[in-house]
């Protein structure tokens, strides 16, 4: 499929989709920067499959002094075909990525990754307590979905929610401070890991499956108010067997609600693999009369194109649609789960090396000269700094004041008395 980008007046056939990070190691060469221009000129004419690979190697030598005008502004990639259920056509087989988009997705995914790893660290230091369900490995889902909708659309998910809190407008600072239970947290320390909210983002929900009917209710409101918005309602492979989800499929279809059901299938519901929990593991078909798509959830472009397709479906008034994103979590179910009693370390390592979402995007961008390796390194450094600053804030910000203990029981109400632990302890609740 011909690409639509220009590099020094020549068209070139690019195949970026199959690249995986086995080439990553080759980025470590010392650069012979002045050699680069010569090499790329020589190789530019090559339309071979390996041309891209060699160009990637060459691209690794790009000098930081090279101007951004030299970068490819836009490239089109082949993406994996999507499995369809009750659909004649699916999302396109190619995706166009602009440089800006690529850098944005890269940065966001890297931010999620580093934020989750920092949370792991803080949890082990006992600065974060209770539940902490980490999202590393699944970044392409959150970022890809957001790429297919807008912030005026709505989204709700379950407890593995830190990534979505970020993509939905939260900052790393307030997310981390919520994890450490400080007053600067996104829920002022009242909610914790599983209960973070932003505009048009309804958490963060602790009860498996309960968020799905809630999402349909949000979609009902969108239809009721006639605002052309939709709601993305996420759940995992473990939740996919919940009865209330089938109840929701039924009502959403009857009433043609603008809802995108998304099953993030990371292969394990806590410690139970999909084969052991589900008589049918074809989660994209479980909606029965609802059209479904099964999508590579490790490829941010796949996820984005599928989400755009699904959003069009909803907005055209056709009612619900269901997407299964095949993805993987590197961590265990939560911080109390090492994650290796029900799966092998080899499996985890294999996914990391062959299907990592961030590496995949990075390879694509570098091999198509959409960014330089230094540039991406700079982003990495900036992200690390952001995370460090946020962690610093999260560990030094004070805990919520005791006056806040009883507040936020009721909205728009007069202050009222709350019984404390003893009959003599009279506390006050304010809205």
């Amino acid at each position, binding site marked *: 499929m011909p690409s639509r980008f220009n590099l020094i007046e020549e068209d070139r056939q690019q195949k970026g989709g199959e690249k995986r990070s086995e080439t990553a190691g080759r980025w470590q060469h010392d650069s012979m920067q002045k050699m680069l221009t010569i090499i790329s000129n020589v190789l530019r004419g090559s339309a071979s499959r390996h041309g891209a690979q060699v160009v990637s190697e060459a691209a690794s030598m790009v000098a930081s002094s090279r101007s951004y005008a030299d970068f490819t502004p836009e490239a089109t990639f082949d993406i994996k075909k999507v499995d369809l259920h009750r659909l004649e056509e699916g999302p396109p087989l190619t995706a166009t990525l602009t440089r800006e988009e690529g850098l944005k997705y890269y940065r966001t995914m890297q931010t999620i990754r580093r934020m989750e790893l920092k949370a792991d660290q803080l949890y082990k230091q006992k600065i974060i307590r209770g539940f902490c369900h980490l999202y590393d490995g699944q970044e392409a889902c959150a970022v890809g979905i957001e790429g297919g909708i807008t912030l005026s659309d709505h989204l709700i998910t379950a407890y593995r929610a830190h990534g979505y809190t970020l993509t939905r407008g939260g900052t790393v600072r307030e997310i981390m401070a919520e994890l450490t239970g400080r007053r600067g947290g996104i829920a002022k320390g009242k909610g914790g890991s599983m209960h973070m909210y932003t505009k048009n983002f309804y958490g963060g929900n602790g009860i498996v499956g309960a968020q799905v009917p809630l999402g349909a209710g949000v979609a009902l409101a969108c239809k009721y108010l006639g605002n052309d918005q939709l709601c993305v309602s996420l759940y995992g492979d473990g939740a996919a067997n919940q009865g209330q989800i089938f109840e929701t499929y039924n009502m959403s279809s009857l009433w043609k609600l603008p809802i995108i059901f998304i099953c993030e299938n990371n292969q394990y519901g806590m410690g139970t693999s999909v084969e052991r929990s589900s008589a049918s593991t074809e989660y994209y078909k479980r909606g029965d009369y609802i059209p479904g798509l099964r999508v590579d959830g490790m490829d941010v472009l796949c996820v984005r194109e599928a989400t755009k397709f699904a959003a069009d479906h909803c907005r055209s008034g056709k009612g619900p649609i269901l997407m299964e994103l095949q993805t993987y979590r590197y961590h265990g179910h939560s911080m109390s789960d090492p994650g290796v009693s029900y799966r092998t370390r080899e499996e985890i390592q294999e996914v990391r090396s062959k299907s990592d979402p961030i590496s995949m995007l990075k390879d694509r961008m570098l091999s198509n000269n959409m960014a330089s390796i230094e540039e991406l390194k700079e982003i990495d450094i900036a992200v690390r700094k952001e995370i460090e600053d946020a962690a610093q804030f999260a560990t030094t910000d004070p805990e919520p004041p005791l006056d806040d203990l009883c507040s936020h029981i009721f909205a728009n109400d007069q202050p*009222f008395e709350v019984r404390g632990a003893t009959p003599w302890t009279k506390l006050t609740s304010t809205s």
Partner: protein
Amino acid sequence: MVSPVSCCQTAGGCCPTASWYLWTDSDSCSDWTGSFSRTSRSSHSEDRSKMASLGCFLRSGNNAVSVVLRREFSKTPPAAVQVNVRDALNQAMDEELERDERVFLLGEEVAQYDGAYKVSRGLWKKYGDKRIIDTPITEMGFAGIAVGAAFAGLRPICEFMTWNFSMQAIDQVINSAAKTYYMSAGAQPVPIVFRGPNGSSAGVAAQHSQCFAAWYGHCPGLKVVSPWNSEDARGLLKAAIRDDNPVVFLENELMYGVPFDLSEDVLQKDFVVPIGKAKVERRGTHITLVSHSRCVGFCLDAASVLAKEGVECEVVNLRTIRPLDVDTIEASVMKTGHLVTVEGGWPQYGVGAEICARVMEGPAFNYLDAPAVRVTGVDIPMPYAKILEDHSVPQIKDIIFSVKKVLNM
């Protein structure tokens, strides 16, 4: 001279009794004034002809005539309309649906069936599919959908056909509705009303007869109300719909058909009964009876019987289970020195237990001349046979017996 006139006011149905009082300054009564007569139930056509006559009279421009609605006048009873609890709820919902576009009703059979208990009669015809929604028999699903709609800015009324079925959805009521405002530190309010009949009915047996006042009353983040009469039903439902928080509205099926007089004030569109305030239905000096829902009526009946023996009971209608109006209860107990709570639900960990504990822990304890006791439903699942069912719920004689025991009579 005063001539009573009756006219028919259509307030969402047939409301037979309304009285206007015509006060004339003029001594000259034309013959036609005699045609006005006060009847307790006039037909529509009769009333329309009377209204027409009245209209003619007023348009005739006779001077020195003023038509005045006089409620305080000692010989004339106040203007009142008889409304049963069902109609009171119906009118309240109708008015609130009209007042605020974001209000809508969903539940099983609420639309085309006119409501399983006819509480939503006529609403679907008036407001249509968008605002009165029939759901499949999937409580957990539709309760969750209702809460989600509240998240996104609508103001749903979610009907459970009976509160027994709410157990299928109780996670959505507690974990999704009640706790969200707190967990989000005030970012996400949940303006929703869950309503439906609660407690025992007649012959519906164990799975359909449970009282949930104590269960929902236990949870912070919820407001829980339990109306007794039509004024309660109307005012509390309006207050609940206007409240920006989750409200559990516990009706009673056996009360739906019971009529009560509603004054003009109560019939105003903005009439609300504040949530969290109990009402003293009957003043007394010897003992306080605290109750909610249908049992309030039993307490009043027991009070009438006891009055003949010289015992004056003060009857407190809780109206709201959570937040509990402890101040009203304490003030009453401090006056009478004796307390009996009456409820339909089971005794263990119930509403009465909470009231007694609160009284123990507060200033009213020092005024008690005897231990506070509870009259409750019998601690068994509800049986079916009539004789057994009758003996499973508190009866008036149980209240009288308990009062006498507490007063050492």
